[in-house]
Structure formats: structure tokens, C-alpha cells
């Protein structure tokens, strides 16, 4: 039995907001794969629960008339990966979604939980960062939207005010039309693992040059990180080996991998450098540019 002190089930987002506002100690629980693990180890910060497991309005994936893809925070990773809207338009997110945990975890764990727990290793984060995803939160004061990279504030820290619920992630058509992408999770096992390094790349091609390039990493700093400086340097370059060298030579400047018992800093740097080249190469290939 879990050490739960209070439990309230919400059927709607507004109910959830009201319940969270009433009890500042309460945390939302959706898929449970994070909160219940913490309760298993008797973590006292999770003893008051607002259950949003069955809030139907958080489980939709839709495309708005302007092409914006809207993914409800309560969508689980299996449904996400199987959604035609997602798999056709933003397959890089499918790669992230299908690399999380194992099948049973993906069947219940939600994209909202993966992002809002602030883990630097979230497999959905690097793909969402290269898709320029925005998140939408709803609280007692109403809605607000912000880019995902601003949502992350530090390890385990996100810009979610008390009483707020993340409602959805939004990806604008200008961030996926013409873009190709790739995500690679580097971990110690082929499944049921947390990333040692996660790397996502996206690119857009104009002739023989990159018209747009985005790179993001997980576990390469206190939060999932975009590689802004590298992207700026690479913008407009000819899509060839020189570009790959430039990227792999520059990418560490954007990141802050650290030593931990899970992996050393220099090992992570080796993987980051290698993945930056390989993942971008694959993303370019998917946009019709093969670099041998």
C-alpha cells in the first residue's frame, strides 16, 4: 500500500485546478509511473494527490486549421506514437516516445508527466525542443503559453505555479513542415532505462544548404537543452561533412554534462559529440541529403 494521506479525483481540468488550489501540498497524478515510484520509496512530497488519470479533455491529439498540432498532456506514449497526426507529421517525437521505459510504462505514462517532472533525461524533451514546442498551462488565473525551453528552470524544476495544470503541447506547422528530424537515445540497455544522453536534431534544406537546423540534448545539462550557438553557427551552411564537423566540434559549448555515478563527464562528452554528428546526418538523410 502506498503512503497516501489525501486523495481527490478530478473529472475535468477545472476540477483539478480547484483541488490543487485548495491544497498547496497536493500534486497531480496522471499515469502514475513517476508519482507512484516516489511513493514506493515513501517520499513525503507526494502524499497528497489530485488524480487526473481519467480527465478526458487532456487525452486528445488534434490538428488546428492552421496546422498546429495540439497534444493533450494526458496522452500516453503508446497513443502518441500510434497517432497518425503525430507519426505522419512529427515522427521525431515518435522516436522519443517509443524509447521510453518499456511497453507497459509507455501504455500509461503521459507526455505531460514526462515534461512537467523536470527530469533532464525526459525522452520526449529533445524532440519537443527541436520542434519548438510550446506548452500551455491552465490555472486559477486562466491560460498561459510559453516555449518549452523556458518552462525548464533547473533539475526537477519547471515553471508551473501552484494550482496550475499543464493542458497541452502545441507545435506550429512552420516548425514541422519541410523539416526532418531524428532522435537517438543512448542508454546502458536497449529498454527500461534512462538515457545516458538523448539527442534530437531537426533540419530544413534549401538547395544544398541548411535553411534551418535545431539540436537538443537530454542529460547534457541540468535540463534538456537546445544548442543555440551551434545552430546559429551552422545556419545556412552547405549540408556536407564540414557541417557535421562544425556541429560536433561546437556542440559541447552549448551543453553542461556532468560527472555522476551513472556516467562520467568525459564519457558523456564523447557520446554527445558522436551523436551530434550521427543524428544530424540521419536527419539530413531524411530530408534527402546523404553525406557519405
Amino acid at each position: 500500500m502506498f503512503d497516501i494521506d489525501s486523495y481527490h479525483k478530478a473529472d475535468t481540468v477545472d476540477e483539478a485546478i480547484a483541488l490543487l488550489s485548495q491544497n498547496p501540498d497536493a500534486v497531480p497524478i496522471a499515469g502514475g509511473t513517476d508519482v507512484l515510484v516516489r511513493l514506493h520509496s515513501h517520499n513525503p512530497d507526494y502524499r497528497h494527490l489530485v488524480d487526473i488519470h481519467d480527465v478526458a479533455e487532456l487525452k486528445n491529439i488534434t490538428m488546428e486549421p492552421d496546422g498546429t498540432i495540439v497534444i493533450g498532456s494526458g496522452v500516453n506514449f503508446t497513443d502518441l506514437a500510434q497517432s497518425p497526426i503525430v507519426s505522419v507529421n512529427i515522427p521525431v517525437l515518435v522516436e522519443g516516445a517509443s524509447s521510453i521505459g518499456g511497453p507497459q510504462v509507455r501504455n500509461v505514462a503521459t507526455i505531460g508527466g514526462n515534461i512537467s517532472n523536470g527530469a533532464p533525461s525526459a525522452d520526449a524533451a529533445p524532440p519537443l525542443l527541436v520542434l519548438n514546442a510550446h506548452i500551455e498551462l491552465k490555472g486559477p488565473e486562466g491560460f498561459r503559453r510559453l516555449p518549452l525551453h523556458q518552462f525548464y528552470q533547473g533539475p526537477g524544476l519547471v515553471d508551473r505555479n501552484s494550482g496550475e495544470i499543464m493542458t497541452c503541447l502545441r507545435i506550429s506547422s512552420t516548425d514541422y513542415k519541410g523539416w526532418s528530424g531524428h532522435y537517438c537515445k543512448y542508454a546502458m540497455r536497449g529498454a527500461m532505462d534512462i538515457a545516458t544522453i538523448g539527442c534530437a536534431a531537426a533540419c530544413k534544406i534549401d538547395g544544398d544548404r541548411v535553411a534551418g537546423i535545431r539540436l537538443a540534448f537530454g542529460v547534457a545539462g541540468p535540463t534538456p537543452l537546445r544548442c543555440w550557438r551551434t545552430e546559429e553557427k551552422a545556419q545556412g551552411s552547405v549540408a556536407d561533412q564540414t557541417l557535421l564537423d562544425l556541429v560536433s566540434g561546437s556542440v559541447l559549448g552549448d551543453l553542461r554534462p556532468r560527472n555522476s555515478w551513472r556516467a562520467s563527464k568525459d564519457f558523456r562528452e564523447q557520446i554527445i559529440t558522436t551523436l551530434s554528428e550521427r543524428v544530424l546526418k540521419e536527419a539530413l538523410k531524411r530530408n534527402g541529403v546523404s553525406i557519405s
Partner: protein
Amino acid sequence: MNRNISCTVNSKSMTWQIDIRMSLADLLRQHGFTSVKEGCGVGECGACAVLIDDVAVDSCLYLAVWADGRNIRTTEGESKEGKLSPVQQAYLDTGSVQCGFCTPGLIMASTSFVEQHKGQKVSREQIRKGLAGNLCRCTGYDGIVRAVEQCIDAEKK
């Protein structure tokens, strides 16, 4: 902390008073569905996997209260009138059972995979990916992959 829930387990309707602090694994085991094993309690081993509305879920990381209104399948319900399910039979044919502790969870994960891939051509890689949430320490998984392959091939025929 108590609540009433209604669900079906292996096609049988149940109404249970539960403590909201229970996991589904706790609840099922309490009611005699002891095929549901606990190997880790945190979704890292898959020994407690059951099907909820035909989707494989680790019941240790699933609140019992969420079972309300849902259909649950455990390994006990897979054999009917003394006849093993194709997946259960395939596990025996391929020698995929040793200590048997991971077996019920693996059988449910395999059953869900086989049902979802009826009539399809699947690779061993896909089978592996589909069963990657279940640890087995005895068999090296070799027979398990062949058991699932055998079930899918039989479905095609």
C-alpha cells in the same frame, strides 16, 4: 480512504470495496489472483503485468481505484475449460518456462502483443520491443521470442 469500484476480472463482474492507497496488484492478489507477482513494485520488471481493456499494464504502478469500470485480464483467465491459450501452450512448447515467476506477466505481455499483431508479419526485433518491459532471469529470452513468433505464425495460417 475506502471506495467502491466495479470491474470485470477475467470476464467476471466484481464489486469491491477498496482502500484508495492500494495498487491494482495489491487488490488482485488480495482476491486470489496470485498469478500477479511482485518483483520490484516500481514497474521495472513486468512480473505484475495484466491487461486492462486489453492493454498491458504493470499493476504495481496502477492505483486500484483506476480499475473502476475496466476489464482486467490475468493469466488465470487465459486458459479456458482446461485448455491452455495459444500463448501459454507456446511457452511450454519452446521451453520458455523455468522458475515461472516472470511467466504470468510475460504471458500477458505476449498475449497483448499477439492480439495486436494478428495476421501481420512481425520481425524478431518487433517482438523484442514488444516484450521489453518484462525481465526474465532464467531463460535468456530465446524461447520466449520463438514462442511469440510461433503464435503469430499460427494466427496467419
